[in-house]
């Protein structure tokens, strides 16, 4: 798991003996899988997003109809169109989840990397944090139901303490429960890369900062945060791309009432409106790529300063 930032070994390790011919046949099966199930599908999405369709079949052609219908009514400034509203809602979730997972993930990684002294305990606690990643996301979502539901544990407690008279309704199937589930599911994607970056920080730098009279906060802000930057960026890319394309978490935890781009694509696919779904996918992909590009630029700019 400490692998997320590892470059291809060929870049820095001594090349093992072998001919490039045998390297090629060894890499071929993997290449074929990604060509068949990743590159070609992406190309098809782009192609079909310009196709026409009727109730029965896809009609090859070249039309901007689908893109136009995605942005139908978006010229009207007073009343926001569905597409903009949906993106706005998704961005809101993105920002919230990103901020929370970043702070929580950073704190947890910091504790593991700098406060746990025995490496055995460190490994144990790290594994403890990552085990839920290997269990079912849907189960982890519905496990909030007995806690947050109308008659759930939280409401029972609040009623017993007479803090509220009627059950709190916004705990489940709301923006709150969606955000909570995202944080619950995906903080792991922040912890692993940030922890990995922190473990690579030379401990003598911290001593040097301490000897030079830096306070704890100064060391944190001027030494640890910049040196954990790669991990922070990688974690951010993971969390943001997952939330941007999500439809499962928003569906289950939002009680199928909250819109998201992923959900629009899913619904359009189920009605076999592939060209429309493809156009939405192309737009989503473009936005996600821009965000990733911005995030990676953040690294370079800081390096150049």
């Amino acid at each position, binding site marked *: 798991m400490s692998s997320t930032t*590892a470059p291809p070994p060929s870049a820095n390790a001594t090349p093992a003996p072998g001919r490039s011919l045998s390297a090629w046949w*060894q890499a071929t099966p993997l290449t074929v899988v990604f060509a068949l199930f*990743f590159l070609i599908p992406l190309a098809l999405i782009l192609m*079909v997003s310009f196709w026409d369709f009727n109730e029965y079949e896809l009609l090859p052609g070249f039309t901007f109809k689908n893109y136009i219908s995605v942005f139908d009514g978006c010229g009207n400034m007073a009343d926001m169109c569905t597409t903009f509203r949906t993106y706005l809602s998704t961005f809101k979730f993105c920002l919230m989840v990103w901020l929370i997972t970043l702070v929580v993930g950073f704190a947890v990684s910091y504790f*593991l990397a700098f406060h746990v002294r025995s490496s055995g305990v460190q490994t144990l606690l790290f594994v403890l944090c990552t085990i839920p990643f290997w269990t079912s996301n849907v189960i982890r979502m*519905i*496990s909030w139901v007995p806690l947050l539901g109308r008659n759930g544990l939280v409401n029972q407690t609040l009623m017993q303490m007479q803090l509220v008279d009627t059950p709190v309704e916004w705990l489940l199937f709301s923006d709150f429960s969606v955000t909570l589930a995202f944080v619950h599911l995906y903080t792991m994607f922040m912890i692993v890369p940030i922890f990995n970056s922190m473990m690579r920080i030379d401990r003598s730098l911290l001593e040097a900062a301490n000897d030079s009279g830096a306070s704890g906060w100064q060391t944190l802000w001027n030494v640890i945060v910049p040196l954990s930057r790669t991990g922070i960026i990688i974690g951010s890319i993971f969390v943001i791309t997952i939330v941007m*394309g999500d439809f499962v978490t928003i569906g289950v935890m939002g009680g199928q009432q909250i819109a998201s781009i992923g959900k629009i694509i899913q619904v359009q696919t189920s009605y076999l409106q592939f060209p429309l779904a493809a156009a939405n996918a192309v737009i989503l992909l473009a936005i996600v790529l821009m965000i990733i590009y911005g995030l990676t630029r953040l690294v370079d700019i800081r390096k150049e300063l």
Partner: protein
Amino acid sequence: MEKRSGSFWPLAIVFSLFVLFMYGPMLVIFILSFQGPEGGLTFPIRGLSLHWFYKLAEGLGVVDIGAALRRSLGLGVAVMLCTVVLSVLAGLAFRKKLKGGNALFFIVVASLIMPSIIVSLGIGLEFRLLDTGIKALLGAFGMDDALEGFGTSLGLFTSALGAHLTWTLPFGLLIMFAVFNRFSPSYEEAARDLGATPWQGFRHVVLPLIAPSVVGIGMFGFTLSWDEIARTSQAIGDVNTLPLELQGLTSTVTTPSIYALGTVTTIVSFIVMGVTLALVWLLGRGRKGRASA
């Protein structure tokens, strides 16, 4: 660093709360799945029983849980085997001079961070266009019987397998990179100097050394496939895997049976993790034993 610094206790509390946050809800549905027959979706517990597990075995509504479970197990094993073999082969390839290696690495990472709904939509689209093509071909050759019998090329071991591999292979390859970054080529050189063929060098020298990581890749392959929803959703056709059925059931089932199902799938995940840990431990012990002998 002798004295605990001031931030130790606050952060220790944050960490403990985080672990509670991670495991608390899971523990709750584990407990609630043993509700008595009169019990509901929330506390209080009304007696302890296996009632809801029996209900689960009888099937939930129209959903055949057993069949979905078998499908998911089969697919998980297939994904696991493919992930292990392809990741190890590609890992070996990347150690050598590999033209286009950087482009391939970029594609693999792109697949990892690509929103799953897009991958899923693309694969679904690809196989539907393939269906159209096959039907046109069958029609053109006048093979009407075959055309009648042809349903779709979308399926568990075609499109769904591919969709899962786009998610598990990046993890497998990254683990292989991490392994080979710390792997000294001198072992293989020694083997070769002693007259071993490349296959013998791999089979008797490299493979035993990387075995624990290979087992780890297998675990990633199985558990990620076992729980996968987003990439499967548009790319599977008529049948459903267990997590997809589960996702559908969340809005229709209002009995603790759904918790029982959660407990069952989580137990499968934990068994796989336990077997992995045991294997890694055994392999590590075997290596130490040989080293000291």
